[in-house]
């Protein structure tokens, strides 16, 4: 290589045409447009709520793409299709529910058609006259989700925003009750009937009622419900009384309730079953729950004692006789009386202080009060006459400190309540005892005694005659002995006479009477014989011819 080398052979670099590599900013515009569109599509897809199917009995007022589904008046969905079900019996409504309401669609969610309704208990759904029918919705409490529903025939009476509690009433018949019939507490409208149905066995009717808060707290397990429908007219000693809860209940029926014993009883749990009674009186009759049953075995007659007769504790009514019967024990039939003592009636008789003291007692102690009174203070049951005219008896509980010891054996069911013989019966038994004593008196023996006495008298008289004869025939020295004999005889006569006296004048009145009658008979017989003798003396021929009719 030399210095002046030829560079002409050096190849030239290939020029690279300047490429406009940068993408014009303007392409951002379609990219943004695309992104926004995609964003909206994605958002719409994400917001897509579930599709549900509801079956309705009819498509009345339901229009596809128009009828809304509302919860608390907020639109949560819309009907998309209205078709018939596969078996053509119902209407299948397909609806799209909004995404935000998806969580509400649980298993026991309810749907129903809201349309104007006019019923006795009110008018509802008037707004739908303008807005058109819509489908009402009420979420349930279940956690399971569901997509197929069956619409309710009528709107539910209660919605979740209504505070209060539901209860179930068992009744024999529905009576005049209907949906929406009011529930009264002290004549205040506090709730209504929300549904009714036959019990599973078809033997009774289950009525569901709803009691609004805060009145629901007055329903305790002890509460009694009765039908307040219509008129309740009754005639009694105080005249005619007519009771009715309200005009609405006259037409639509109603239910009233009351809690018999006030006190801090626990509130009843929701859905607690109760019995619906026919009227207030039967409703407030205490139930078996607060009742203590006792058996009383009286010894006297039960005549005048009837089922329902009161049981009075020191004059306070605390219960009633529930059953009267005979019991075969120890080889004999004996009366057996079952009495019920109502705790609430019992407690009602207490003074406030006693009640307070009683409340502080433990349960066992409280139930044992009667038992202790029986064991320690001689509390006994006794039959007493309530009315002298009708002879009605009642059972009285009273203290008899002298009564023989007894106590209630709580192990028996029902336990026996010791009894004492009571009032009238006691008098009766006393009389009976006297009669029995009289019966026991040895009348025959007395008769024998009399005979014996007479025989002795006879013997004495004979010996007296003999003595007299001896006095006549024998010597005087014997007279002394005879006198002694005589004296003896006289004393014997005296004794006999005394005993005869006793027999005749003693308490043995019939004997005396009979004796007198016998004497009279005897006198009469003697007179008759005398008259016969006189007659025969004057008319001796009658012995042969018989008695002449003309000549009596």
């Amino acid at each position, binding site marked *: 290589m030399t210095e002046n080398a030829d560079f002409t052979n050096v190849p030239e670099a290939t020029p690279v045409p300047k490429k406009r590599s940068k993408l014009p900013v*303007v392409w951002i*515009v*379609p990219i943004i*447009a695309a992104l926004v569109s995609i964003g909206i*599509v994605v958002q719409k897809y994400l917001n897509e709520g579930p599709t549900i199917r509801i079956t309705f009995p009819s498509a009345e007022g339901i229009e596809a793409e128009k009828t*809304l589904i509302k919860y608390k008046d907020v*639109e949560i969905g819309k009907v998309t299709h209205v078709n018939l079900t596969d078996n053509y019996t119902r209407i299948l409504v397909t609806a799209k529910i909004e995404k935000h309401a998806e969580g509400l669609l649980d298993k026991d969610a309810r749907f129903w058609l809201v349309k104007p309704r006019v019923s006795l208990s009110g008018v509802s759904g008037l707004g739908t006259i303008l807005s058109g029918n819509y489908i009402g919705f009420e979420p349930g409490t279940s956690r399971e989700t569901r997509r197929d529903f069956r619409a309710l025939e009528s709107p539910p009476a209660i919605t979740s925003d209504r505070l209060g509690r539901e209860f179930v009433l068992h009744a024999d018949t529905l009576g005049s009750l209907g949906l929406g019939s009011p529930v009264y507490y002290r004549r205040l409208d506090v709730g209504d009937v929300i549904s009714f149905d036959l019990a599973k066995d078809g033997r009774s009717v289950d009525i569901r009622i709803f009691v609004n808060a805060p009145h629901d707290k007055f329903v305790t397990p002890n509460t009694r419900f009765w039908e307040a429908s219509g008129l309740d007219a009754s005639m009694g000693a105080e005249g005619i009384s007519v009771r009715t809860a309200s005009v609405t209940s006259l037409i639509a029926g109603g239910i009233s309730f009351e809690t018999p014993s006030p006190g801090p009883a626990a509130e009843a749990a929701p859905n607690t079953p109760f019995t619906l009674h026919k009227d207030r009186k039967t409703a407030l009759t205490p139930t078996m729950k607060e009742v203590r049953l006792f058996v009383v075995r009286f010894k006297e007659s039960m005549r005048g004692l009837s089922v329902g007769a009161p049981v009075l504790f020191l004059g306070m009514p605390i219960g009633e006789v529930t059953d009267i019967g005979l019991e075969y024990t120890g080889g004999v039939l004996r009366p057996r009386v079952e009495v019920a003592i109502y705790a609430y009636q019992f407690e009602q008789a207490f003074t406030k202080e006693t009640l307070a003291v009683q409340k502080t007692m433990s349960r066992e102690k409280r139930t044992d009060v009667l038992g202790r009174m029986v064991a320690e203070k001689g509390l006994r049951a006794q039959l007493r006459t309530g009315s002298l005219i009708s002879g009605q008896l009642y059972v009285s509980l009273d203290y008899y400190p002298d009564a023989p010891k007894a106590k209630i054996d709580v192990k028996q069911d029902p336990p026996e309540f010791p009894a004492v013989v009571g009032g009238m019966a006691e008098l009766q038994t006393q009389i009976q005892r006297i009669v029995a004593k009289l019966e026991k008196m040895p009348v025959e023996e007395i008769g024998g005694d009399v005979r014996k006495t007479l025989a002795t008298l006879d013997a004495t008289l004979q010996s007296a005659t003999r003595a007299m004869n001896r006095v006549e025939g024998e010597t005087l020295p014997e007279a002394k002995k005879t006198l002694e004999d005589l004296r003896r005889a006289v004393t014997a006569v005296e004794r006999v006479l005394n005993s005869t006296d006793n027999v005749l004048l003693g308490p043995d009145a019939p004997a005396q009477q009979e004796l007198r009658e016998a004497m009279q008979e005897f006198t009469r017989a003697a007179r008759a014989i005398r008259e016969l003798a006189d007659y025969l003396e004057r008319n001796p021929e009658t012995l042969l011819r018989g008695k002449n009719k003309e000549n009596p």
Partner: protein
Amino acid sequence: MTAAVRTGMREGFVSCEACGLLSRPVDTEEPGECPRCGAELEFRRRDAIQRAWAFAIAAAICYLPANILPVMRTTTLTGEEPDTILSGVVILYETGTWYLALILLIASVMIPLAKLASLAYLLVTVQRGSVRNNRERTRLYRILEIIGRWSMVDVFVATFVVALIQMQPLMSIAPEPGVLFFSGVVILTIFAAESFDPRLIWDSSQGKQETND
């Protein structure tokens, strides 16, 4: 067509788009400003085809939601009713005012679509260097420019209606996202038409003619 037309660009001159003054550019890349009115000079609109394409595609993208999504929501006593453009056409037709339905159909559905189609046609032909129907294509472009802005009337109507009909319990109208997309379509097609340089139609035909000569 006359042969060997002398154009300003070929002669090295540039005309001002604002005042029409023909001037000598400083440089072919950066022509500079118009010496009379001060407007920026350019031989041809910059990136005309790319820009036009971009706006046209964006408009096309917006066109779908504009027609699918509701443009407004009418709330009356009897309920709520969202309306898309097409459902509006249907309602107008069903209620008997077929002429209004026709106007709405043409102004809101067909014109934007026609604009997009025309733009695409112009752009494709220019890119392919087509020399046919130059005059017609130029006329098409002019029509495009003129009627483009009238589609905005729809958007104005919607805005007016929304603003005016607010009788709360009886009736009220609220805008819905569809109206945004619709105005997007209108504005983007205007931009696309604006970005397009009709002189390109002739440029390619010039080249072609030159080669043909």
